[in-house]
């Protein structure tokens, strides 16, 4: 069972109170982008065994979208953070580095 603390209302929400929103920090490529950029934006997703960043929505709660950093293998949650950011905040990255010293994710390390 996955429990994520919603950074907007502070509720420790069990998974069934949340809606999964897929991979975090995707950059949209739309009109004017190359075919390859658009293809990657639409289809290419990370599927790591380990550190991962995701979007979640507190659907049966305050309704807000937020981000979560967790380990896909152990279900350990490193932290949750605001949706208003395009990359994982430093304190989350530091927390992960403490526990998984050589982690990488896309071009974040």
């Amino acid at each position, binding site marked *: 069972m996955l429990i994520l603390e919603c950074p907007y*209302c*502070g509720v420790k929400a069990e998974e*069934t*109170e949340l809606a999964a929103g897929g991979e975090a920090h995707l950059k949209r490529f739309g009109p004017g982008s190359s075919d390859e950029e658009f293809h990657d934006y639409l289809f290419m997703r990370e599927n790591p065994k380990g550190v991962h960043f995701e979007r979640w929505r507190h659907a*049966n709660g*305050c309704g*807000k979208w937020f981000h979560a950093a967790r380990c896909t293998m152990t279900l350990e949650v490193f932290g949750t953070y605001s949706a208003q950011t395009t990359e994982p905040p430093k304190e989350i990255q530091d927390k992960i580095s403490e526990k998984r010293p050589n982690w990488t994710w896309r071009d974040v390390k």
Partner: protein
Amino acid sequence: MSDPVSAMNGAKFSGLAQVEDSGLQGMITLRGDLASDTLKAAVKAATGADVPASGHVSLSAEGGVAWMSPDELLLLVPYEVVDAKVVDLAEALKGEHALAVNVSDARGVFRLSGDGAREVLAKICPVDMSAEAFKPGQFRRTRMAQVAAAFWLDDDGAFHIVCFRSVAAYVFNLLSVSAHPQSKVGVY
């Protein structure tokens, strides 16, 4: 003119706890900047209660205010005056980035009381319902089996549950099944 009736029209069930339709309740959804002094004053004027802290409800003699999200409140007012209150709010919030809407007839409200009330909710909501974790004055939006719902606990130990009117019959039946007299678990 129409004769308004509440979602379950006064239905009652008695088992491990008492489940009852609360009757007509005026409810206003208010979205805006909860830190704004103008909004705080308008809320106080409409309900007699202050803007509550996150995850809480503040109650007054004639109404109350529940914290729904960082930019949303649920105002509780007598059903008869809800339209007038919405007009007053719109006037008081002129110039603010805010919106007040009467949702009274789009919701069902139930009262759940008695010794088994915590257990009845714990069976159907992913919420820690122990007395240490959920105290009077707390407000929680969550899932009640398959539907969204919210509830608060008053000072007399009764829970007040709000759900969408379209699922009010489901919620009433769900609460009644959860309060079945032969379904006691006895954890609280």
